């Protein structure tokens, strides 16, 4: 899906937990997420901390969309 949408002309960021699959599929901008059943959250955190965590990942996604890439790029934690 990532590839087809990108082919149509949109920059796409793939936010997912199993990065090797995303690399095989051919996503160009990849942001690793927390866990398979809750990529944008962590139920062990307080709601405030969880929101902050989610916000951080979304920011990383936006950053990826704003960054020119040459080939497949995984946007890891600094």
């Amino acid at each position, binding site marked *: 899906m990532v590839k087809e949408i990108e082919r149509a002309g949109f920059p796409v960021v793939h936010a997912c937990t199993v990065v090797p699959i995303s690399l095989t599929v051919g996503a160009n901008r990849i942001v690793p997420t927390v866990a398979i059943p809750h990529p944008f959250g962590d*139920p062990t955190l307080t709601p405030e901390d969880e929101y902050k965590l*989610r916000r951080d990942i979304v920011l990383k996604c936006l950053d990826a969309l704003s960054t020119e890439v040459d080939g497949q790029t995984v946007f890891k934690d600094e």
Partner: protein
Amino acid sequence: MGKCKIVHYINQFYAGIGGEEKANVPPEKRDGFVGPGLAINGAVEGVAEIVGTVICGDSYFNENLEEASDKVLDMIKSYEPDLVVVGPGFNAGRYGMACGMVAKLVDENLNIPVVGGLYEENPGLEIYKRHAYFVPTGNSATSMRQAVPAIAAIIKKIAAGEKVTEGYVAKGVRKNYFAKERGSKRAVDMLLKKIAGEEFVTEYPMPVFDRVDAQAAIKDIKTAKIALVSSGGPVPKGNPDRIEASSASKYGKYSLVDIFDFVSSNGETAHGGYDPVYANEDLDRVLPVDVLKEMVKNGEIGSLHDYWYSTVGNGTSVANSKAFAAEIAEDLKADGVHGVILTST
């Protein structure tokens, strides 16, 4: 050589520990066969024997790669096997990846053969096929009956010290051999056949890489319109379009106009391939709508597309996914979207 000693790697489901709610169990080992090992052991009776089974939850393995790899490898080693069997994993995404990673670990560290079974579209097959004899299987456990004899046939060959020449997905490893004629002659023969319009067989089929170049980045995110797409199955509460829990035949398009925050009463997941508890409690964990709406309010992004698109990426065919995505892309174009966040579970 005595009986060939086999260690079998399976996931929590096939070990009977539990389904998705148990996908987080760490590695453990049990003596003898467990689950599908019964049938495999029976099919190789007399020449080989499953001496131990190593089990790990699918999510645990994929989320704790290094630790899980170390533990699983140690457990496999402890049985001093002659051969390792992984799966079969059919078209299960995380299980297929785990089977592939175990195959790689064994291949690189223990230098013994690995036999497994995966469906042709399983991403684990594409990535790890060179590390094992993977027999091609159907896409679900209903084809176990065909997979077991195919796996057993390869085990028997290996146990008998014979060369395995068929019944598995080509590993993509080059082997040297002596041909009757030199390369230049063979190449010219092929060329002549091609010119004459006759059929010829290439000696090196070119791999097909379906890659798409990255699109240009968004210049100013503060004015950009962002859209959300997901293969994690996020749907309005009640799954109005009845998107299937696996092998999805459709996708849904849902309005975000009145949603500012997902709670347990307005969203859920239709995905049958992971523990749905966390997503059903708060769907923002799969589709971060609360954060994006707040960002629109704060002017951190221009706007959020009024709809989200969702399907279930669980054993769903590549052909279906492509078709869904092409339709979704048309919609996004019509609405002037600048960039897409695609979330997967």
